[in-house]
């Protein structure tokens, strides 16, 4: 019950924000005054109505995982986010080995096999992508300058990055 009410509230707030943004859409003489706004306004309206239905007729709660699992999933999200920004400045091999290893450890917590899985996947996939499939834009490794590394990481920090 509470999770559906929270979900309904979040979607309602999003829908209202979306509607507000939709009324602010810029128009010009080519598009006419209301055509670019019409469809977003319709969607926002339907979403708001559905949010109310979910708010007032919630389903039973799903089985949420225990707090330890939440931490594991949080780590996984963080690792994937850091991996996303480091893939370019550091190249493929090192970030992939570390990210795959950590993910593997989150699924089955045994350090040895997880480390091996990370290394194996990183090397194996690199050979597969680079030589078997010929994806040119994968680079094995790069040595970045400290400034470049900071630039990449700062993307993830709100209000600092771009």
């Amino acid at each position: 019950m509470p999770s559906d009410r929270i979900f309904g509230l979040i979607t309602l707030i999003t829908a209202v924000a979306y509607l507000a943004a939709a009324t602010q859409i810029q128009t010009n003489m080519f598009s006419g005054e209301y055509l670019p706004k019409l469809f977003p306004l319709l969607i926002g309206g339907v979403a708001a109505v559905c949010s109310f239905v979910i708010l007032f007729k919630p389903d039973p709660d799903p089985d949420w995982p225990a707090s330890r699992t939440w931490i594991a999933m949080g780590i996984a999200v963080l690792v994937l986010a850091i991996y996303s920004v480091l893939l370019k400045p550091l190249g493929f091999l090192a970030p992939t080995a570390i990210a795959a290893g950590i993910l593997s450890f989150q699924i089955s917590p045994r350090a040895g096999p997880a480390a091996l899985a990370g290394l194996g996947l990183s090397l194996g996939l690199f050979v597969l992508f680079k030589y078997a499939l010929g994806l040119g834009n994968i680079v094995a490794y790069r040595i970045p300058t400290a400034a470049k590394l900071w630039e990449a990481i700062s993307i993830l920090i709100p209000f600092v990055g771009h």
Partner: protein
Amino acid sequence: MDLLANLALGFSVALSPYTLFLAVCGCFLGTIIGALPGLGPSNGVAILIPITFTLGLDATSALVLMTSVYYGAMYGGRISSILLNIPGDEPALMTTLDGYPMAKQGRAGDALVLSGVASFVGALLATIGLMLLAPTLARVAFLFGPAEYFALYLLAFCTLGGMASNNQAKAAIAACIGLGIATIGVDSSSGLPRLTGGNLHLFDGVDFLVAIVGLFAIAEVFFFIESHGLGSSIGVKLEKVTIPWKDIFETKWTMLRSSGVGFIAGILPGAGASLGSFLAYMTEKAIAGEKGGFGTGVPKGVAAPEAGNNAAAGGALVPMLTLGVPGSGTTAVLLALLMTLNITPGPTLFTERPEVVWGLIASLLIANFVLLLMNVPMVKIFVKVLMVPAWILLPGVTMISFVGIFSLSGSFFDLLLMVAFGVLGYFLRKLDVPTVPVILGILLGGNMEDALRRAMTLSDGEVSYLFSSPIATGLWIAAIVGFVAPMFLRKILKKPQAITD
């Protein structure tokens, strides 16, 4: 004979040694993708699209490869359903009901071969149905104007939400999320950015591949972290595999009926394969009655959903090719593939680019035979794939997804967006909000809005124009019935729950 001439054209495109080789590769890869628990057809095709794109294949080759993967994954889904009691995707759920009990009785090999044959019958009949029906429907589709298309898109979202989910409001919200995301980007008529929040990366809009891979593949990682990779070891033994001629012969009418039911369910825009396997199973259960023993591991209970599922997969291609409205989640992904290859599905596709349509149909037929030949003798090899532990499989799939999306644009932004979609997908699925409407919304939002705009421009803002023609009115009524009726039918047609040990 028009049909034969067209087929000859199709085979002349699809039957070169190179495309045959691609078809075999695709079938093999697809079966593995389908068999791996947690990697369904939509998932697998979505991950492979960016990679095929960077391989630089031409349109026909890419299409042959991906449709083989698609059909292969439909075949492969039954392996994990039968042996592990884990459906690879939603439509395979019905196969677990009788497949898993049958495997526990020591007849795993029989169940696998029988379901392979049923898949073949369903898919073959559906492909033939597609050949017969699609050109006719393509001619009807010429009558569709913007008002009719708008109503048709609405129908797709309504039936998808109505039949494929447990809660109408949640399905509608899912569709709104997708459609809302589709409106982000530079507006087509004014040339000004909309709803981007000033973020330069969003001016191009959100690529649906990023959303698909995030919602399906990345979200799966979180589910495996939650379950700690448990439940993916084989519980039943697979002994020698022989061909159960008797069972195949006894289930011949079941297979034929289920193929028909599945095909019709597949044609309905938005309803798709889940409905096909569900209706096929329920019909056979009703025909067999109490004595049929459905749910205890009877051959008919294995053959019916598999034939229905694969027939629906073929049927779903009819609205997808003729109208550009996909009938299921996986066909939505195929539609995404066509769009990346710069092929616009619709009635004109049949007249302007017949080689693409008939090449596709021919490659479906080829893929079907390849899959039957591959699946019966080689089923033991595919079963071996299930031994890959989750702690290697899931990080591997994730890394492949990252490389695939990275190769699209080479930008960190798409990767971050994909992770965000993964998180969104986890929460949506946890809360029983279907994710397929989100995908469909992102994919069709632009077209749906265009149809609405054109209708409004044509009628000078007159709303009643949307209901003016008989076709449009019919579609509106069907959409409303498709959305509302399941609320009442849900009590009568209760979905059978998955069996647990």
